């Protein structure tokens, strides 16, 4: 069976699985952004917490993804077999680039701009929302972009704990020793990653203020 004919024959299944994969990624990214960005904003003024948060996030990222999925299975509430566990692991992976870029973006602003903002009588909250955050947005988005590409890749491994997604094809193909089946998972996953990188890159360029 050629790869091409497998693709033709199973296009509906491949499409559904791609959607399933994308859903997994979007849910995980939504949580990662909702945690990473506010956490980054919170630790900017708190050096001790910052070291701790960035440290924990860095350690989490060094754990091999397969091991992380394994570790989470026995943990009550967030663990077990299935999508929920996979999402938790993906969120843990995605947080670091988002957290780090939020922090870097918020602190990498021209000091004379911040001094002017303070001297003009803007409150801390106004400086954060009207000056720091808009100026950091492009950098934060770069973090989200990196995290999205990572998540699309790592999400293929989530299939081993029964989360579905394009990894299903890859692991099935490995078991069947079938290139066609492996590629049915690998090609859409790669395309998703490229597409996400491209679209978020465009958005990033649009938001950049020099």
């Amino acid at each position, binding site marked *: 069976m050629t790869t091409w004919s497998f693709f033709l024959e199973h296009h509906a299944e491949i499409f559904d699985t791609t959607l399933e994969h994308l859903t997994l990624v979007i849910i995980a990214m939504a949580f990662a952004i909702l945690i990473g960005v506010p956490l980054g904003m919170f630790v900017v003024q708190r050096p001790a917490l910052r070291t701790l948060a960035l440290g924990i996030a860095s350690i989490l990222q060094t754990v091999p993804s397969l091991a992380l999925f394994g570790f989470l299975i026995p943990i009550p509430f967030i663990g077990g077999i299935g999508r929920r566990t996979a999402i938790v692991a993906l969120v843990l992976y995605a947080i670091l680039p988002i957290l780090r870029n939020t922090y870097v973006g918020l602190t990498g602003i021209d000091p004379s701009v911040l001094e002017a*903002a303070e001297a*003009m*009588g*803007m*409150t801390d909250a106004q400086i954060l929302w009207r000056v720091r955050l808009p*100026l950091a947005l492009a950098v934060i988005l770069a973090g989200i972009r990196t995290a999205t590409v990572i998540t699309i890749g790592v999400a293929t491994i989530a299939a081993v704990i029964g989360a579905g997604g394009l990894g299903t094809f890859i692991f099935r193909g490995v078991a069947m020793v079938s290139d066609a089946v492996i590629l049915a998972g690998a090609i859409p996953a790669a395309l998703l990653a490229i597409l996400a990188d491209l679209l978020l890159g465009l958005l990033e360029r649009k938001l950049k203020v020099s």
Partner: protein
Amino acid sequence: MNAKPMALPNSVIEFRGVTYRVPPANGHALVSDISFAVHAGETLVLLGRSGSGKTTILKLTNRLLLPSAGHVLVSDRSTSDWDPIRLRRGIGYVIQEAGLFPHFTVAENVGLVPALENWDSGRIARRVEELLRLVGLDPGEFAARRPRELSGGQRQRVGVARALAADPPILLMDEPFGALDPVTRSELQREFSALARRLGKTIVFVTHDLREALLLASRIALLEAGRIVAVGTPQEFLHIDHPEVHAFTASLTTSLVTQPGAST
């Protein structure tokens, strides 16, 4: 406002024995035992070399810093008693690199403080237009531009317009023309000197350029290593017998020789 009997009736800013040390509390003193008063409508120029404490005095005035000892009074009230936000909204601040917000247009930069003060949008737009004209920029051409689309001189003009936006009685200016080329600088100095006389603001102006000080000052205060060593009107100042004054007057004659066009 709780007027203290000691204060001069028309001193808008007053420093009484002010020392500022870098934290921790016993750290290096950036300014030591500084006392002076700035009267309504006058331009006090703080003259001194880099690191003499000029900028620290500005930052103590709008409470970006609080004194380690002594009192800074603005409108007869200690800055430590002022709500910092209210205090700063009444003080315009212009710095060397302008510090314009790169993500705002010129109009949004100038209109920021009025917007923070909840003016309605029509009033802000009129005020922005008025101010851009005042600093010599055509509103039609410049209002919608971003700071990166301006020259250094234009950025400083916008910086001045922004500082004047909510009509604050006090202006603090930290080497506002320091980063400009000599021609643009003397152009802006002359325009600003005329503008300052017309507006009647109380101005504290920081510079290391004696020529600029002589042009703009009602009085000059010379700083050396965090202390005021000489004070006088421009006429008096040139005749003060102090080594640091001599150092500056010597630099003046040099600069007149090297910039013949600027001697007017």
